């Protein structure tokens, strides 16, 4: 078996062979000359010469070898050693593979989301995303077009700033309207991202501010809807009943600038030239653009933020009335950009990676324990090798190599596993109205990550026992059979240390997973403040399907009438927002006559809801009235505020009849609704104002309270909508419970993975302590036999063995608790309804871990206790 052939080595081997042949020929010739027969001479010469392969091998040892030959030999030796103990090899490889896979899976998720926030874009590390005003976990678009243009033109720190608005629309013209996701983008959008068209061209600078009915298709839309038409450029397609000309196709994989969300089409900011108001105002509904900038080389994020802040201050000074509230600019790197999914990713995935690293450490400690136990039983072999002239470096190298071989094999297994597990990330996200594209990715950086993880594991697993064993003096071991009774005191200490480390590492994992699981239960059990079990929602693409304003109002009324009349429907209503779906709308609101301080944020959440909305969701109106069908465009504008908003604007006063100015228009408060959950159960309450759907509503979501299971009613509702107008695009017909589960997606991810990691940790810790205690008990068989023979009772033996287990467990738990108290502080932000140092969880976890460890000690103790002392003494 030649692993690393080398010319020098082979030439010398051949020459040695010839030399030996010559030796034999001469010996035979001499014997024949003395009168022996040829055959007898040959046999005698061979006998005299001895074992030829052995002579070759020991002679070859004298040559000294290149490092490659040396390595090849060591690797062969390592494989031979591992083959000799397949149980160890398989267990260790499997454990390492699982631990490495845990790490690489989480890493692939990070890689696929945070590290590649904008697929296809060049140097995303130079991109920053912009927020205006109070920093927010889920902000709304920060800038109007005019403000954006001023920032773009007057800054000194960016090589380019792009703007976009993400929305959805329908592709008409086909048999069935199809919903697609679209972004209105600045003309420099693709330039700033550094993306070149796969076909045709992207937008021209002069197209930005004027009507330019051009559209760029994404690769996947071009492929699925237009069958990869090679002549698509220049053709006209119908979007929302308007003809647009295809000018280009984006390269494969490009999905737009909002991390985790997909765009199918890109158009300019005002492609039809009918949105002049939005292009020429600086406040209200004209604040609609998300902004991403590319920093000039050598410019830091802070410098850039200061630069933009200066420009923004000038804008505010020039247009103070359009810039009430907080206008400070802050910038985020894309990996944690709060627009899109990365804000959530950044809060979850690094913590999971930290857990996975703990699992890896734990596994290394476990494998090191196994290796050490194995080396102790192999130490006679090692001592012989040492006395035969192998130096310490060689021995250490040999042992480290065994660890490395194990972990390379484990890494290969993990690599195979990760190609599958990296794609499981998408499972955590339910179908929803957002075009999520979240998933892990397996690319070269993940592969490199796996290699690094496994090398780390190999060195950790191999080096510690190797370093330990190489210090054992060979002479001592060879002469003293007695040393084998306890395995030497320093090895005993190291083994104990490793067991303590395993318990100490698994405790925080268990504690964190306990806390996260209870958080999940609390979230699921929490009352969001509205009814969600008997609600069905359906999105109707009314205003994107090209109807006139009057037609829209007519169809809306028809929908309410027809759906209400359906059997099984209690109440039908309209809304343009569903709570707990990771989205919200926000606007600045000012009480009439109120002059805000500069930089005072007056942002409130808002939603537009129709009559009987509160009734169907069972949200009580505490004061005043609910909306009625009469609150339409002809009636005065009205508002219902929630308790938080009422307290904020009119503390200690009756809010009814008070006026609020939003978008420069006056709204009168007619009711106060009880607080309910907007985004997450564990959010800090934000003020919410509800406006009348028939006055301000834009998106059309039919909300139905049903008598039975809402899913059963879905086909009937959908049919009714199609009966009204077959061209009506209807999407996302699903029970509200399904939609609101989106809000707990991340809690589910956290607790699922933490739970899995903790389970692995528990198994490792328990098998670790079992292995060490049973090994040590076996080493002490002779001693225990003597004790029993000298009159120790079985109970004494049990106590003797158990006591060491109890000590180790106790120390491990104490160290682990200290470690855990540090780690739980990191996850404190993720918890709900439970403290980071929750004593109940802590006691529970310590009890489980302690009990499992003791159980693991009990079995070897029992075995020792039941042993016949006579055979035990004989066995040495």
């Amino acid at each position, binding site marked *: 078996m030649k692993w690393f052939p080398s010319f020098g080595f082979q030439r010398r081997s051949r020459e040695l062979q010839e030399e030996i042949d010559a*030796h034999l020929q*001469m010996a035979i010739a001499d014997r024949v000359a003395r009168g022996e027969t040829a055959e007898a001479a040959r046999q005698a010469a061979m006998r005299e010469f001895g074992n030829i392969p*052995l002579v070759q091998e020991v002679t070859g040892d004298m040559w000294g070898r290149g490092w490659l030959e040396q390595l090849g030999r060591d690797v062969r030796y390592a494989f031979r050693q591992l083959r000799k103990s397949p149980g160890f090899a398989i267990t260790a490889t499997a454990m390492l593979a699982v631990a490495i896979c845990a790490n690489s899976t989480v890493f692939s998720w990070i890689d696929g989301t945070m590290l590649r926030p904008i697929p296809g874009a060049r140097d995303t590390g130079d991109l920053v995303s912009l927020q205006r005003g109070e920093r927010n976990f889920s902000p709304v678009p920060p800038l109007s077009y005019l403000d954006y243009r001023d920032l773009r033109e007057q800054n000194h720190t960016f090589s380019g700033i792009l703007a976009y608005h993400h929305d959805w629309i329908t592709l008409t013209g086909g048999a069935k309207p199809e919903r697609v996701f679209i972004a209105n983008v600045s003309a420099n959008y693709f330039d700033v991202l550094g993306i070149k068209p796969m076909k045709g061209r992207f937008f021209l600078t002069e197209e930005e501010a004027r009507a330019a009915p051009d559209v760029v298709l994404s690769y996947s839309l071009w492929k699925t809807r237009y069958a990869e038409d090679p002549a698509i450029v220049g053709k006209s397609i119908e979007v929302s009943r308007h003809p647009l000309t295809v000018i280009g196709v984006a390269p494969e994989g490009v999905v737009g600038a909002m991390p985790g969300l997909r765009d199918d089409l890109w158009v300019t900011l005002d492609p039809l030239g009918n949105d002049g108001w939005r292009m020429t105002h600086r406040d209200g509904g004209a604040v609609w653009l998300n902004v991403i900038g590319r920093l000039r080389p050598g410019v830091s994020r802070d410098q850039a933020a200061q630069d933009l802040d200066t420009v923004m201050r000038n804008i505010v000074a020039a247009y103070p009335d359009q810039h009430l509230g907080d206008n400070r600019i802050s910038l985020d790197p894309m990996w944690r950009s709060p627009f899109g999914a990365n804000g959530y990713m950044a809060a979850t995935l690094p913590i999971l990676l930290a857990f996975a690293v703990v699992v890896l450490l734990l596994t290394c400690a476990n494998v090191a324990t196994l290796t050490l136990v194995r080396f102790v039983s192999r130490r006679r072999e090692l001592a012989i090798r040492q006395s035969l002239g192998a130096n310490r470096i060689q021995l250490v190298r040999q042992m480290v190599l065994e660890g490395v071989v194990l972990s390379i094999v484990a890494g290969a297994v993990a690599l195979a596993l990760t190609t599958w597990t990296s794609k499981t990330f998408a499972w955590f996200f339910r179908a929803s109205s957002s075009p999520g594209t979240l998933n892990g990715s397996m690319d070269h950086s993940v592969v490199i990550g796996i290699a690094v993880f496994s090398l780390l594991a190999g060195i950790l697993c191999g080096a510690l026992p190797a370093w330990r064993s190489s210090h054992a003096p060979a002479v001592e071991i060879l002469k003293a059979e007695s040393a084998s009774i306890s395995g030497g005191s320093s090895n005993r200490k190291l083994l104990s240390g490793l067991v303590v480390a395993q318990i100490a590492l698994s405790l925080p994992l268990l504690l964190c997973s306990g806390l996260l699981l209870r958080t999940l239960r609390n979230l699921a059990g929490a009352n969001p403040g509205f009814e969600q079990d008997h609600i069905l929602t359906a999105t109707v693409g009314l205003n994107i399907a090209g109807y006139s304003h009057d037609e829209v109002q007519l169809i809306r009324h028809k929908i309410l009438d027809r759906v209400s009349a359906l059997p099984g429907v209690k109440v039908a209503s309209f809304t343009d927002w569903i709570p707990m779906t990771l989205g919200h709308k926000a606007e600045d609101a000012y009480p009439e006559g109120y002059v805000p301080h500069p930089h005072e944020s007056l942002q409130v959440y808002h939603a537009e809801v129709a009559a009987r909305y509160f009734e169907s969701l069972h949200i009580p109106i505490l004061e005043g009235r609910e909306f009625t069908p009469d609150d339409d465009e002809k009636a005065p504008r009205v508002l219902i505020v929630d308790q938080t908003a009422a307290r904020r604007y009119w503390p200690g006063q009756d809010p009814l009849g008070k006026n609020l100015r939003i978008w420069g228009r006056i709204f009168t408060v007619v009711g106060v609704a009880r607080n309910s959950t907007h985004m997450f159960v564990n959010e800090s309450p934000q003020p919410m104002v509800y406006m009348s759907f028939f006055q301000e509503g834009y998106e059309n979501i039919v909300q139905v309270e049903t008598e039975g299971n809402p899913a059963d009613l879905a086909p009937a509702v959908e049919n009714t909508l199609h009966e009204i107008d077959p061209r009506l695009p209807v999407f996302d017909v699903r029970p509200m419970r399904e939609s609101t589960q989106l809000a707990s997606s991340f809690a589910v991810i956290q607790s699922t993975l933490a739970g899995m990691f903790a389970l692995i940790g528990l198994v490792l810790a328990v098998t670790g302590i079992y292995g060490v205690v049973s090994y040590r008990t076996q080493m002490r068989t002779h001693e225990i036999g003597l004790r029993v023979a000298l009159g120790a009772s079985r109970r004494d033996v049990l106590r003797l063995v158990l006591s060491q287990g109890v000590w180790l467990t106790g120390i491990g738990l104490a160290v682990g608790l200290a470690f855990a108290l540090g780690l739980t502080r990191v996850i404190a932000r993720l918890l709900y309804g439970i403290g980071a140092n929750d004593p109940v969880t802590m006691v529970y976890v310590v009890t489980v871990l302690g009990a499992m460890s003791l159980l693991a000690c009990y079995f070897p103790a029992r075995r020792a206790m039941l042993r016949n002392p006579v055979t035990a003494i004989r066995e040495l």
Partner: protein
Amino acid sequence: MSEKGHYKNRIELLQGTLDMLILQTLQWGPQHGYGIVQALRLRSGDVLQVETGSLYPALHRLERQGWVQSEWKQSESKQKARYYRITAKGKKQLASDLGRWERIVEAIGSVMYVKPEESAS
């Protein structure tokens, strides 16, 4: 313990002596491995039977240390064989080995052949 280890032990035991014997044999002219074995046997009156498992590792080690050089040549019986030749460095080594050997023999001898009256005092 492996056979390999057995041979290695023998090498270690004989190391200094075997090296010296080989170098001494090569003093009389280049010789191949088989020739060295025969020469040692003859000169020692069949007492020294060098095993090939010790001889070849020793020869290759001596070459690596630069005390001998080897080349392939035809023997008188037309057999192609590898001939070893002692180098200047090897001769110096032989001199120092010989000196050490003589001191050891003398030391051992003075222990073994102690006069009775001296030991009594």
